[in-house]
């Protein structure tokens, strides 16, 4: 009866597998499941992953939802700021089913239906919040004036409170701007203004450059002149020192001023007739007076 035993075991296994398929359902990690009994949701959704018991169809049915954070972006839409600037804004959000029990009856588990509701709420929240702010709250070099984050948080709070009031079972995890743009006609004027600013910048840069270069050059000239003037002063001082040193020697000459005077004249003579001089003498000038008294050369009377 060995053959029969195997057959029975196999048969039992098949029955067990079939029963499991009918009576057991899995909730995957990150999923949430709603079980309905005759189309009425049971008390608690199954949020923890694992295998659970259910009655087979058509008594109970299982609906599973992704509990992870899902991305949603609205289509760009035009919004007026408080100072009447038209902004074209695109917002992205991360949302998540926080309460499957509320979510299921509202949308019959349809994510696109939920996103349609979300889009509408985003748009009205965006209009309401942006309408309270000036353009300078969106773009500003001063971190204290920039309210970018604050605006995002305000929109998020408005959307979240709308979702909570209607008990949609949806939670917004994060929300931010994806695009902030201007209408095409406005970009043209922005381009004109930018061009204007560039041209101003160009002429400013040119003029500044010239002025700075001039400042540098004239400072250099002044400094050079100063350096030379200082050197001249130093030179005068040095020469003065020399003269002072010479003055110490002067008493030597005072021993006989006549000799000193005579020697100076001799030196002056030597110096002045050093070269390229033509001298015209008459015979009485020594040493040519030798010619006068020379017997053979006596002038005829």
């Amino acid at each position, binding site marked *: 009866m060995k053959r029969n035993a195997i057959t029975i075991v196999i048969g039992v296994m098949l029955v067990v597998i079939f029963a499991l398929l009918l009576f057991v359902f899995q909730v995957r990690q990150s999923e949430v499941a709603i079980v309905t009994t005759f189309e009425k949701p049971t008390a608690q959704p199954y949020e923890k992953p694992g295998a659970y018991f259910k009655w087979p169809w058509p008594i109970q049915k299982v609906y599973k939802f992704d509990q992870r954070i899902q991305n949603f972006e609205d289509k760009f839409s035009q919004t007026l700021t408080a100072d009447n600037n038209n902004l074209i804004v695109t917002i992205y959000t991360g949302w998540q089913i926080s309460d499957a029990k509320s979510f299921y009856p509202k949308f019959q588990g349809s994510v696109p239906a939920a996103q349609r509701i979300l889009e509408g709420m985003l748009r009205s929240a965006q209009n309401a919040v942006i309408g309270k702010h000036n353009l300078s709250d969106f773009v500003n070099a001063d971190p204290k004036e920039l309210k970018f984050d604050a605006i995002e948080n305000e929109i998020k709070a408005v959307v979240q409170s709308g979702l909570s009031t209607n008990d949609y079972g949806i939670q917004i995890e994060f929300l931010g701007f994806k695009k902030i743009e201007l209408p095409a006609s406005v970009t043209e004027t922005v381009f004109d203004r930018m061009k204007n600013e560039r041209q101003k910048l160009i002429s400013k840069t040119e003029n500044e450059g010239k002025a700075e270069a001039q400042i540098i050059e004239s400072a250099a000239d002044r400094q050079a002149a100063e350096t030379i003037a200082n050197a001249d002063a130093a030179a005068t001082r040095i020469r003065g020192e020399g003269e002072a040193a010479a003055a110490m020697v002067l008493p030597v000459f005072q021993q006989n001023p006549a000799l000193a005077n005579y020697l100076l004249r001799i030196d002056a003579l030597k110096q002045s007739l050093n070269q390229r*001089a033509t001298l015209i*003498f008459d015979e009485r000038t020594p040493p040519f007076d030798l010619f006068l008294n020379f017997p053979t050369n006596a002038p005829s009377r």
Partner: protein
Amino acid sequence: MSPEHEHDHEPHPTPVTPDDAGSQALAEALRSSFAIVKIAMLLMVVAFFGSGGFKVRQQEKAVILRFGKPVGEGQKILLGAGWYWSYPYPIDEVVKIPITEIQSVDSTMGWYAMTHEQEVLYKTTGVEPPAGPLNPAADGYALTADRNIIHTRATLYYHIADPMRYVFTFETASNTVQNELNNALLYTAARFNVDDILTRDVAGFQDAVLQRVNDLTERDQLGIVIDNCQVQSIAPRQLQDVFNLVTTTRENRNKLLNDAHSYESQVLIHAGAQAKSIIDTASADRTRFVESITAEAKRFNDLLPKYESNPNLFAQQAYLQAVGQVLTNAEKWIQPTAENGKSREVRLMLNREPPAPKTAPANP
């Protein structure tokens, strides 16, 4: 179902007694085909359990979900590189997560619209598509703090640090990362002036974008670590010429300043050299002056006794010696005294430049 098959049919061939060669051959064929079916079933069972084996590669982590629930606790949920076995679906499900592999996302929301061909052309040759007015539906851009329009785009490189969170908390975490990169570009551009983004502080802008993405991904606990962020920003194509002109003007200004600085150093070096030469000359003059006067004093002291012994003789000697010395160098004319004792009239033709002495100049 197949086992039942076996149960139904296998006993049949045994009672049949082969009465002719034909039916014997049939029975033989049936027996062998049942053997083949048995082997096939065995193989299927082996394959069913064998299919549970899987390999986790070096750069991956894997999670086994048993009835949808991760197997293990804490860090043990994540399986490192190696071979593993799991029950086949639907009992177990293996989720593999690339953990060390660098992931990247691009943000082009701040760039003008390009067709695929234009994009390829731009990336390979840098040729930009023709510029038209910006269409908010298609073209992207960012507004700067000084309300200029620029195009900016970025590529973010990251790797997954917390695989459980990255995979099981976010539907498509990479999309979220991308949107946060978009937001970071927009936000950072809104804080920077156009010149800082494009020229003056390109690195600062990139760092600020990186900082913002980092803040956002940490706030939302995306479970990633950012490795790098590359940002590229350009002026709108419509204004490219005038922006280029600004750059040229800046370069010209720098050149002007460089020229001024080189003029400055040249003038200062020259002045320094001149000053040094003035001072050196003065010092040399001083030395020479002092030395010559000292030498003269010495000569005076030497000559004084001779002079005092006979002043007239000394004076004549000194005079003649000096004149003799002078006359060797000078051109000289000797004019005889007139017979009547009167002076003669002498006419001289003076060159502006007196002729060079014929003899070599002697040292004084």
